[in-house]
């Protein structure tokens, strides 16, 4: 099986303080820790597991600046065989549609049985790149995959996660693209030795010309959407903060429970 995995290098915001920068259109990037997008972490793990079982190669691709190399190296350490990074300063301001166009241009010239992406990126949460690549390459796709069974070189059976705990089982002809949902596997821990070995592997870098995209097809001009400004989400409820020592706070919580007849 030859597998391609598309990954994204993203700022980790879950536990960080996120501020708007001076342009008003982006967040203050300084001081944020970057890593592989959580969904992609499960996607690369899934690809490596299938390779270990069925043989073949795993190629990992990203669109991003040089810093994104660390995410590619992490994937190489996990067991990916090759890494490709697409980058050009002209890509600045590109939306997920442009990213999908760039990825599909490169993948078009490659041999593969299937492509994996994450369901979405944790920074922009668009969930657009995967299905658009599938459309541009004219191959079938399935999103939100929680279980992936490769039957043979021609068919896969996937379990799609729906709402409310429901799953949908779908048979898809290969080559195809699947977007991977978190929890499909348990991403492995990468050893120091693995990372060291990955440092020696080459990362192929492609510019806009190599990809075969025109300047007018990328950046804000080539995008469907552009960010006008960021703002802090308005609160839906007015939260009353309980203050004091943890003993005082605990008593206040118990008082609330009592007032609701729960103790």
């Amino acid at each position, binding site marked *: 099986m030859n597998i391609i995995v598309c990954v994204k290098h993203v700022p980790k915001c879950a536990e960080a303080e996120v501020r708007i920068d001076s342009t008003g259109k982006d967040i203050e990037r300084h001081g944020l820790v970057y890593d592989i997008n959580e969904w992609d972490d499960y996607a690369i793990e899934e690809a490596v597991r299938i390779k270990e079982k069925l043989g073949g190669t795993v190629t990992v691709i990203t669109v991003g600046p040089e810093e994104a190399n660390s995410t590619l190296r992490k994937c190489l350490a996990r067991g990916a065989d090759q890494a490709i990074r697409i980058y050009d300063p002209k890509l600045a301001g590109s939306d997920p549609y442009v990213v999908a166009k760039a990825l599909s241009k490169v993948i078009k010239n490659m041999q593969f049985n299937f492509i994996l992406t994450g369901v979405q990126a944790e920074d922009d949460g668009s969930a657009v790149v*995967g299905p658009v690549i599938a459309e541009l390459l004219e191959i079938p796709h399935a999103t939100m995959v929680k279980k992936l069974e490769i039957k043979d070189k021609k068919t896969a059976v996937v379990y799609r996660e729906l709402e409310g705990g429901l799953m949908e089982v779908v048979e898809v002809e290969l080559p195809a693209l699947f977007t991977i949902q978190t*929890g499909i596997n*348990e991403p492995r821990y990468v050893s120091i030795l693995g990372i060291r070995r990955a440092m020696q592997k080459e990362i192929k870098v492609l510019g806009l010309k190599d990809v075969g995209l025109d300047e007018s097809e990328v950046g804000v001009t080539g995008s469907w959407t552009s960010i*006008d400004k960021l703002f802090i*989400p308005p609160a839906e409820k007015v939260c009353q*903060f309980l203050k004091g020592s943890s003993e005082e706070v605990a008593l206040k919580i118990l008082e*609330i429970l009592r007032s609701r007849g729960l103790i």
Partner: protein
Amino acid sequence: MAGILVLAEHRQQQLRDITFEMLSKGRELADKLNTTLSAVILGKNIKELAKPLAEYADKVFVVEHDALENFVSDHYQSTLAQLIKQEDPLLIMIGHSSIGMELAPRLAAALNIPLATDCIGIEFEDNTLVVTRQMYGGKMNARVIVKKSKNYMVTVRQAAFKAQKPLRSISGQLVDFPYQPPSEAKKRFLELVTPPPGAVDITAAPLVIGIGRGIKDKGNIPMVEELAQMLGAVVGCSRPIVDKGWMPSDRQIGQSGKSIKPKVYLALGISGAFQHLVGIKGAELVIAVNKDPNAPIFGYADFGVVEDLFKIVPTLKKKIAELRGGGA
């Protein structure tokens, strides 16, 4: 026509809530723009399901076909592409759901219609579509301009808009529209799998304690379970806890898990991703404990405690024991 077109979602012979949320927002936009609102429903034996749509939409396109018995995006895409070409709608609204996320990006790319996903605000400003969407795990909202176009497409976040009946009575016209098969069918629906019933029903409990990433390790869960036992509460969790395999999936609260409606929901170390917040909308009162003062959960909580749950939980247990004469 240049009106607004809403894709009705249904599953197991029921219209999904997002359908009415989109019809309500769609009606508002259509009235503001002085244009028409249409809906389209695809499926098998859907005549009855189509009727409530006509209370919102001026026209309801009904696509009835055996091949549409279960949702498979290819069949929706080929048929909708045909309808969009015929009707030329200004805006196509699709749910940001397991149906819409499978369908919309690909349909948009095929028709070269600019798409904005997971929208929580949708407005037209001088014929330009401007949407609001969330980024960075709900810590930021973005005002997003969609590229000028004849047609636009959005996917709409579930539960972002209120479902409400139109102010005036509308009895739209039901119109049959032909099914258009895809050029090649490479995806086949096999079956729906319903989740096995769990040992504990978190949906009916009056007091639910939720745990999230802040719990840090599986080994810390018993501490919360003991607290729950002392209070007669049940323990639920956010998605990452189930993803890590620390709790069974029937304890997951949120969009892909369960919706709860307790008197009080005590959220411990939960940041408040939107998918989780959808599941706690029915809670009468929310108390959130999180050491990050910027955690989005505080925007949805009645009471908040900016503190480490590892300080609060043991203190709560101690105080309960004291109140019960130290015997608990």
